[in-house]
């Protein structure tokens, strides 16, 4: 019994370490680049720091500990890692900062890579919608959720997926960084509605059909947190999206 919990926490430490370090490095590199770059807006650094803190809040500390046994805590972590952190990080325009900071030759190579067909494919809202919402359905409606708590490797992989799918989805809907393959507002709005709906439907489904090994009471509280918390974060995403339309659709001629 003791042994079992011991190996569990050791594995937990390994996965926390593997997941945390990249975020810490990202924080240091960004702040360094922001200080190095001339006139980089301060609020963008605030967004970046906020996003990193959201991710860390889900990966280490009391919430991450509790998430192993408590579905509501797991869901709070999911909202932080898969939705709040990506939104904050996207608003920090990391690619713009990177392109500015890199040596001009490297920046050109990166810009060229961003125009590639692969990037076009994985940054299309339809793709990111499936990666994001499809991944969640797979996680919570199959035995994957239970398996995640048994295997460290799976734990790391799923958390990486939740974060990256959330990030790719966010940047495929709102264009903060330069985008070479732009999609129309209507196309993105439709993808956004499908994503919101997929998230909401899954929340209500989980309310009645808990994942393997999750008690009913926890599933109810967790799914309601998923539903309303998701709505709150999505509201910010929707406002940013509509504001971008408002700016893009401004009248060209001067009105009296």
């Amino acid at each position, binding site marked *: 019994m003791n042994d079992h919990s011991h190996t569990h926490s050791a594995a937990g430490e390994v996965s926390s370490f593997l997941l945390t370090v990249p975020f810490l490095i990202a924080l240091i590199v960004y702040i360094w680049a922001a200080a190095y770059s001339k006139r980089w807006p301060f609020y963008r650094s605030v967004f970046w720091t906020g996003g990193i803190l959201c991710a860390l809040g889900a990966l280490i500390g009391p919430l991450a500990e509790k998430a192993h046994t408590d579905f509501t805590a797991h869901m709070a972590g999911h909202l932080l890692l898969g939705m709040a952190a990506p939104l904050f990080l996207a608003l920090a325009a990391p690619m713009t900062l990177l392109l500015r900071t890199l040596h001009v030759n490297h920046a050109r190579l990166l810009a060229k890579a961003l125009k590639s067909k692969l990037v076009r494919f994985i940054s299309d809202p339809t793709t990111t919608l499936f990666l994001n919402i499809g991944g969640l359905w797979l996680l919570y409606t199959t035995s994957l959720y239970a398996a995640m708590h048994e295997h460290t490797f799976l734990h790391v992989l799923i958390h990486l997926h939740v974060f990256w799918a959330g990030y790719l989805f966010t940047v495929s809907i709102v264009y903060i960084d330069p985008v070479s393959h732009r999609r129309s507002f209507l196309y993105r709005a439709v993808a956004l509605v499908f994503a919101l709906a997929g998230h909401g439907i899954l929340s209500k489904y989980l309310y009645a059909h808990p994942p393997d090994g999750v008690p009913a009471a926890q599933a109810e509280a967790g799914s309601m947190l998923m539903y309303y918390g998701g709505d709150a974060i999505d509201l910010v995403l929707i406002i940013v999206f509509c504001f971008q*339309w408002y700016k893009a659709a401004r009248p060209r001629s001067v*009105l009296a």
Partner: protein
Amino acid sequence: MNDQRKYGKNQIHYSARNLWSGFLFGIGFIAFFDEMVFHQLLHWHHFYDKSTTGIGLVSDGFFHAFSWLATVGGLFLFADLRRRHALWLKRWFGGVLLGAGVFQLYDGTIQHKLMGIHQIRYVENILPYDLTWNISAALFIIVGAVIVLQTKKEISYE
């Protein structure tokens, strides 16, 4: 001087946008009202009713998602009309009533009754609640349609 006429021209040019802005906001507003009053404050509605059908869950999910985007999008369209000096409040309000009425009628008939999402209130005699709900929805639609048709007449007079 001739500002008055110029604004009128903008309103007519953007008459469809006035209607759509109101319609979207109407859907969003009534869905928000439903969530706030009946789910959160009164606790009449259930988050999930065990008799909800699969299709009901999907329909509810899509309408909820759409209404969330519609609320914000409708308001940004409103702001856009204002900056173009094209806001036509009467037509916009007609759109609000139409949007609210259409959504409430859909919610009250197809979603509540046919798909069994959740009932308005869990009481023995639900009929008065259903009647109030759907008749008020029908009234919204009728008044909204009258206003929209009236403003449409004003367009053709121009």
